């Protein structure tokens, strides 16, 4: 429309340059105004059929919980990285990928809007805009003002309510509670404090404190967290590894995976090699688990911790 108008102008008008670019500007402005008019005329997106609600999830924690409750989401974010970092439960094959976590693909969602988008407080800075496509609900276990464990339970219940899977939600909550209690019993004899860390590079680790999943699991199983220093909003601190000597008798639990070359470089790291825990064989590795996850990740972390703490006393060295 606008294009053709402008094209004709250009054919007829071989006039002063000043007038010419005014035409270009006018054409651009017209195009834009045409655009706004159509918006006004455009009815809100329609949704008709009342089958089971189609849910999309922007955050891995809600994705994990949805799938654990037996819901097959319509779409979830960044499936490839979910498979690397969260792993379980697996994403059903019919679920589509809706793009990166902080920027769900709106062109895609607009073509067949789900009945509900679950988003995290961290990722959704423009909910008003998303609300034009579909109802958006911020479901999160951080930023709630509550301690992490009740917040995660509340989040699970909320997802159960929203999807009509209340019973499954209660079952997951009870199951997690029981597993934590059982883990606490089998770990009752252990008084040694523990650092739970993830390597960032050879010299730095994320060490987990309270207020997150790791802190919760340690708390509920009555393990003593060796890290008592300051942490950020997600309950961890990035520190250089020599600070792991501040509690000399602690055990160090490393959440895998190691960043690529770190495992081999640790052999030359004199500070690491001289850490009391390393010299005395008190370092254990556990399988990859999403440390900011929901109840499923929490169960997996608990299981791994119990395994390395109670299994062989001198667990595999790094």
């Amino acid at each position, binding site marked *: 429309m606008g*294009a053709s108008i*402008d*094209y004709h102008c*250009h054919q007829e008008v071989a006039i002063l340059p000043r007038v010419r670019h005014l035409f*270009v*500007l006018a*054409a*651009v*402005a017209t*195009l*834009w105004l045409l*655009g*706004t008019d*159509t*918006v006004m005329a*455009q009815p809100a997106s329609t949704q008709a059929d009342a089958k089971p609600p189609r849910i999309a999830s922007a955050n891995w924690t809600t994705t994990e919980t949805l799938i654990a409750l037996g819901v097959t989401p319509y779409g979830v974010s960044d*499936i490839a*990285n979910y498979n690397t970092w969260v792993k379980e439960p697996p994403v059903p094959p019919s679920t589509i990928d809706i*793009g*990166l*976590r*902080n*920027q769900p*693909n*709106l*062109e*895609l969602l*607009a*073509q*067949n809007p789900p009945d509900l988008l679950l988003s995290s407080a*961290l*990722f959704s800075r*423009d909910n008003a*805009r998303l609300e034009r496509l579909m109802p958006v609900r911020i479901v999160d276990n951080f930023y709630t003002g509550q301690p992490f464990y009740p917040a995660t339970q509340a989040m699970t219940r909320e997802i159960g309510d929203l999807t009509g899977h209340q019973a499954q939600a209660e079952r997951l909550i009870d199951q997690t509670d029981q597993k934590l209690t059982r883990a606490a019993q089998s770990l009752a004899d252990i008084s040694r404090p523990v650092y739970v860390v993830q*390597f*960032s*590079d*050879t*010299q*730095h680790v994320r060490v987990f404190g309270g207020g997150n999943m790791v802190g919760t699991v340690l708390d509920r199983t009555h393990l003593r967290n060796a890290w008592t*220093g*300051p942490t*950020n909003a997600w309950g*961890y*601190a*990035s*520190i*250089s590894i*020599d600070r792991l*000597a501040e509690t*000399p008798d602690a055990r160090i639990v490393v959440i895998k995976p190691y*960043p*690529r*070359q770190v495992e*081999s470089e640790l052999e*030359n*790291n*004199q*500070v690491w090699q*001289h850490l009391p825990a390393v010299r005395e064989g008190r370092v254990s590795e556990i399988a990859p688990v999403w440390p900011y996850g929901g109840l499923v990740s929490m169960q997996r972390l608990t299981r791994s911790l119990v395994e390395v703490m109670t299994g062989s006393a001198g667990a595999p060295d790094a």
Partner: protein
Amino acid sequence: MSVSRGAKSPLWLVVVLASMALGLGYTTLQTQFGDLSGHWLQALVAPDDDSIRQVVMHFTFAPRLIVALLAGAALALAGCLMQQVLRNPLASPATLGVTSGAQLALVVATLWAPGWMLAGREWIALLGGIGATLLVFALSWKRRLAPMVVVLSGMVVSLYFSAINSALLLFHQESLSGLFIWGSGALAQDNWHDTRFLILRLAIATLAALSLLRPLALLDLEEDGAKSLGISLRKLRIAALGLGIFITACVVSAVGLIGFIGLAAPAIARLSGARTFSQRLVWSMLLGALLLTVTDLVVQQLSPFTASLLPTGAMTAALGAPLLLWLLPRLKIGGSRPTPSTGLKLPRLANPARRLWWLGLTTLVVTGLALTLGFMLDGAAAQAAHPGHGAQLRFAGLNDLGLIVDWRLPRVATAAAAGLMLAFAGTLLQRMTGNPMASPEVLGISAGVAIGVIALMLLPLGIAPLNGSIMGFCGAAVALLVLVVSNRRSGFAPERLLLTGIAISSLLDAMRAIVLASDDPRAQQLLSWLGGSTYYAGLTSSGWIMIIAIVLALMTLPLERWLTLLPLGAPTAKALGVDVDRSRLLLLTLVALLTVAATLVIGPLSFIGLMAPHMARLMGFHGARQQLIGAGLLGMLVMIAADWLGRNLFFPDQLPAGLIAALIGGVYFMWGLRRL
């Protein structure tokens, strides 16, 4: 250049810094290793293996101190050599692309060839640094490695590589988080390997530099003078630059990116009175070593109080930038001599107006394509055929008008408006300063906006977009204020203005690196905004930004007389009746407004502002008005195309438009540079 009063020498500065280093070093020992006092010497020389505290001191504190001294001196040496060879106070390892080349090589190796990393990351960094430099050489070879062309190529290569870096980091944040820390120059040590590595290389490089001392000193003469003394300029430049790159790559591979020292130390040495090249070399190395060490000690003092890492390299920039800004008004570069692009043979068009119309038409066609072509869901059957997201690339029909208007038009319009404004800002700057390296980012305005927005992200003030614009405006206003205050006395001389801008931009770099290294999950969001995403554009906001762009563009067009006369140099322009100071101030204000508006919606991307005016010139638009319009159209064209690619290339994942613009624009630009 005459010495103003007495025998000024950087000695006082070195003494001040050295006593700071001693004081801070002692304090650090007291606070961190107070429990060992009395055993300090033993811990340093022969630690007791059973005392972890002594081991920590022996393998972290001591090598870190020495590595800081060595790395600082090495970078200063590299910067000094580069500045001398290119006779340009803006040259440094970072502006020549060496550091981003090294980083890119490491990121690529980490992702796709982890086996190579076993051979040693330093060698991969070295390869990357050399590769970047060879590219820079290839781009500037035809111009016989002329200083300005080399630096221009270096900045382009640098921008290009960091764009690729950012794209990779966006997709692999979790796997690359360690590289963020390295990328921001954390100096932490865990053995003596880096110290031995650096001490040997620095010794070799210093000896080599000393052997080049005499011929390099002759470069202080004008180029023709040096030539007539029988020096092979090309060989000399290659040797000295090669040396600078070698030592930079060594530092980068050992301790990460510490860019600012290489730029700042030689500049500070020159400003505080070192005149001859050998004086500059010696004082720069001392200053560089001490600057980095003092910064690192301050960082170590602060680190027990924070949950996140404070990377020393980035902190160096944060502390060094204000220092440079303070020193700038005291800078004595030889007058406001314009650096016209001598010897550039560009095509002159018989009929540029016709080409402008073609360009306009192309822009319209591309806009139409960008609006209509995209990934569409095709029902259940197609969904089965396209697992993953169930959509395929095709033109939208009339039924999809709502989709186009609601979700595509705002992004296309925002991209176009931002492209237009940045192109105008870049054209204004380049004509005003007569410097082909000028662009909104070099001026530091977009950095100011970004600093404001990052500050907002980190402070718990709520995340309303309104706050973002207010903070962005504050940042831009402060940047502008700094620019004006530190340049008014010199009448906004081009080189000084650019150097001020670079100092401000380096502050942004520092903040960005600190945020990324702080291991904060919000880093992803920040990275995407910094890359220039149109994701958050809505109809209202894109309408406003369009109106702002058009109004500002209309305000700019009548200024063509100034834009024609200013590139001729201040004296000529003055003689022709231009009030140089007033016109520069006004144009600067216009540039600031254009940049603020563009940056707020699309992040501090700079490539369009640098590239569009150049592309316009390469296409033959020489007159001020033609260049403005040509650049504006090209800016829109490239941004719209970039936005489309960003939305569809990795559907449903989306890349920021600014990033893609840098990626496509860079290739064209390098090709154009080669033809210069």
